[in-house]
C-alpha cells in the first residue's frame, strides 16, 4: 500500500483525506498494525487506482524471499 501511495505521489495525509480516515489510521494500515474493513480497503484502492489484489493480497513466502 505504501508503494502504491508513493507511486501516486501522495502523502499519508492526502490519502487519509481522500478516503475519510485519519493519517494515523493510514500509517497503522501500512505498518500492518490495523486490519481495515473491506469497505475501507475498496476506498483505498479507488483512491490509489489499484485493485484489491494489487494492494491487499498476501504474498506467499516464496515471492517474499525473491523480493
Amino acid at each position: 500500500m505504501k508503494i502504491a501511495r508513493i507511486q501516486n505521489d501522495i502523502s499519508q495525509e492526502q490519502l487519509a483525506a481522500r478516503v475519510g480516515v485519519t493519517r494515523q489510521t493510514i500509517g497503522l494500515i501500512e505498518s500492518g498494525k490495523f486490519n481495515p474493513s473491506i469497505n475501507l480497503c475498496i476506498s483505498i484502492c479507488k483512491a490509489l487506482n489499484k485493485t484489491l489484489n494489487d494492494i491487499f493480497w498476501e504474498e506467499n513466502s516464496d515471492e517474499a524471499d525473491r523480493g
Partner: protein
Amino acid sequence: MRRIADERQENEISRVEHFALWTLFWLLVASIPVQLLLFREPLVILGECISVLVVSIIILISFIKRGLWGRHTNPSSKTHLFSGLLTAVIGTSIIAVLVWGKDCFLYYIFLCFVILFMVAFALSYAFGVMIKKREQKLADENDEHL
C-alpha cells in the same frame, strides 16, 4: 451529532468503553458483599442490586435475541451444573452473612443452597434451550435470504 471518528478510532473507543464499563460492573458487584459485611443491613445494597439486575437482564435479553451463549462454552449439562453451583455458592455466601448467628443457621444455609442451585440450573437450562432455538432460527432466516 455527526460522527467524525474513523473505523479504527471507533474500534479503539469501543475497546476503552468495553474495559471501563466491565470494570464498573464488577466493582458494583464487589461492593455488594463488602457493604453487607460492613453494615449487615440488606437495604444498604438495594440500589446496587437493582443496578446489577437491570444490566444483567439487558445482557441476557440481548444475548438471547442474537442466539449467543458465550465466548468459551456452549449450553450443556456441564455448563448448567457449573452455573447452578456458582450461583448457589455466591448466593448462599451472601445469605450467610445476613443470617449469621441466628437459630437454625445451618438449616437456612442448606435450604438456600439447594433452592438457589435448582433455580439457577433450571434457568440456565431454559435459557440454553431458548438460545439454541434462536440461533437455529437466525441461521434459517439467513438461508432464506440467499
